């Protein structure tokens, strides 16, 4: 019999209310970024403001769930998926603030990625939003939080890299059209590298923190568990990309395809492994 935590109706109402309002705001921002990509440049700033609002509302949801659970909501696909969506939006907004205004074109493809993750956590029947207590092995807040937060930051970096890669492909496809509002290929390539680098750093930190925690929990820092293996494969694909760029000067299509492959492997590591290759990382 699955143990569930008792949550007050008010707590549940606040949590789900903030969740659905935030999702609505994410989708609205996505439409705005879409219009911006189609040349309605005035929509870009409105989309950006809406996305900031969505991130704030989603932060409210995460805090409400935290209060309902009595722990940081980072366990299981529903909680991790929500946290990843939030971190990805935040990572994108941070990049948007850093780079020139043309970067807002990336917002459209980031929104596609966000929509896909939102669809996964809301529509996929095997993703449960139930409030569950932590099993014994996860009752180590220090390493649980470090490991999962670095994991989400890594996935967010790779997802942002995917978004830039998709925009690069769109730009290439539409070559010749009046696309002055979309960053040129070299700038996109630079953004791609920046996002992949960020993901790679955090993903490396995630693997290392997982090793330290596994050593305490299971008495070995590496166990060839499917999740560990596929995390390593994800790491390897992005390591190849970074090396190929640095030593072989890979730019353009090859680099874009390699990043898309890396993201696909990352997605399998996150979702595919849980259903197809369950192991000791099967926490729900």
């Amino acid at each position: 019999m699955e143990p569930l935590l008792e949550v007050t109706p008010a707590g549940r109402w606040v949590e789900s209310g903030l969740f659905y309002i935030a999702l609505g705001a994410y989708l609205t921002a996505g439409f705005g970024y879409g219009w911006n990509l189609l040349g309605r440049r005035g929509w870009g700033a409105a989309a950006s403001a809406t996305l900031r609002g969505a991130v704030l509302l989603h932060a409210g949801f995460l805090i409400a769930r935290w209060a309902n659970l009595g722990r940081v909501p980072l366990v299981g696909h529903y909680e991790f998926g929500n946290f990843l969506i939030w971190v990805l939006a935040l990572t994108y907004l941070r990049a948007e603030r850093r780079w020139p205004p043309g970067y807002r074109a990336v917002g459209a493809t980031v929104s596609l990625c966000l929509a896909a993750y939102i669809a996964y956590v809301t529509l996929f029947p095997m993703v449960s939003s139930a409030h569950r207590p932590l099993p014994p092995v996860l009752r180590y807040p220090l390493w649980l939080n470090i490991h999962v937060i670095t994991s989400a930051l890594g996935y967010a970096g790779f997802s942002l890299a995917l978004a830039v890669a998709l925009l690069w492909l769109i730009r290439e496809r539409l070559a010749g059209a009046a696309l002055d509002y979309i960053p040129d290929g070299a700038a996109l390539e630079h953004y791609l590298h920046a996002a992949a680098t960020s993901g790679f750093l955090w993903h490396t930190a995630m693997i290392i923190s997982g090793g330290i925690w596994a050593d305490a929990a299971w008495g070995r820092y590496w166990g060839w568990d499917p999740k560990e293996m596929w995390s390593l494969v994800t790491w390897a694909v992005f390591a190849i990309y970074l090396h190929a760029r640095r030593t072989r000067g890979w730019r353009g299509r090859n680099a874009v395809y390699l990043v898309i492959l890396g993201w696909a492997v990352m997605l399998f590591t996150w979702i595919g492994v849980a259903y197809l290759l369950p192991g000791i990382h099967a926490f729900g």
Partner: protein
Amino acid sequence: MFGRAAPGAGAAGGTAAGAGGYGSLATHVGLLVLLAGAAVGSATGFRATGGGMAGDSFAVAEAGLTIAIESVDLEYLADGRLRPIARTRIAVSRDGQAIGQDVVSINFPARVDGFSINHQTFLWAVHLVVEDPATGERSTPMRLVEGESLPLDGAGLALYFEAFLPDFFLTPGGEPVSLSYYPARPVLVGRLTRHGRTIGRGLLGMDRPETIVTQDGERLLDLAGFENAVVLQVARDVGRPYVFGGAVLMLAGLYLSFCVEKGGRKDNGAPA
């Protein structure tokens, strides 16, 4: 967080010289140290398991250690509906000399004299008493751990300890289950076997003896008590500090490579 070199810069967020260059060196040296540590640990280390109940001890031949289990306590979670946390107090000795004492539980291993002692799992153990109703003679309590068998006569009849249900409940379909880990209604689920083949399955509740017909006549089987057994892992891995040290060096190198520009300044550049 992001690499900040201008588009077209050769290095990843930096250049081959300066901090970026040192970063690349640190990353690859760190990776080599990590791999070397893993190889040395794998070649020279060992991993052994042992366990028992409170009062038991087991020897770890590879290390010349004896581990005495002084107590096993369960911390029940979510009213017993989650698997409990087992805390095992151990005393470690070598050649009769005590070298350490600690409490081991999941996530919190004991580190004694270079050895790591980790909790692996806990099991239920029962105390069974066999009584001859004809003479009233009772055996001393025999301890049986989940998965073990107790021979009942000389003709191959045995009781196989299939499962322990701490909070017994019979489903409408007749299947025995446990509602929680809290031992409110402890019941043993056992199988009677003859020469390894199952001939019957039954339940044995606390202080509710069951009669079993053996080759030597009727016997009363009594569940007199229960306790917990733990399985511990004892390991030594001399490469472990190098693995973690190499990993940290690698991470620092990646940070230098990607986030710090030539000359050690953080790069704030943006695409032209």
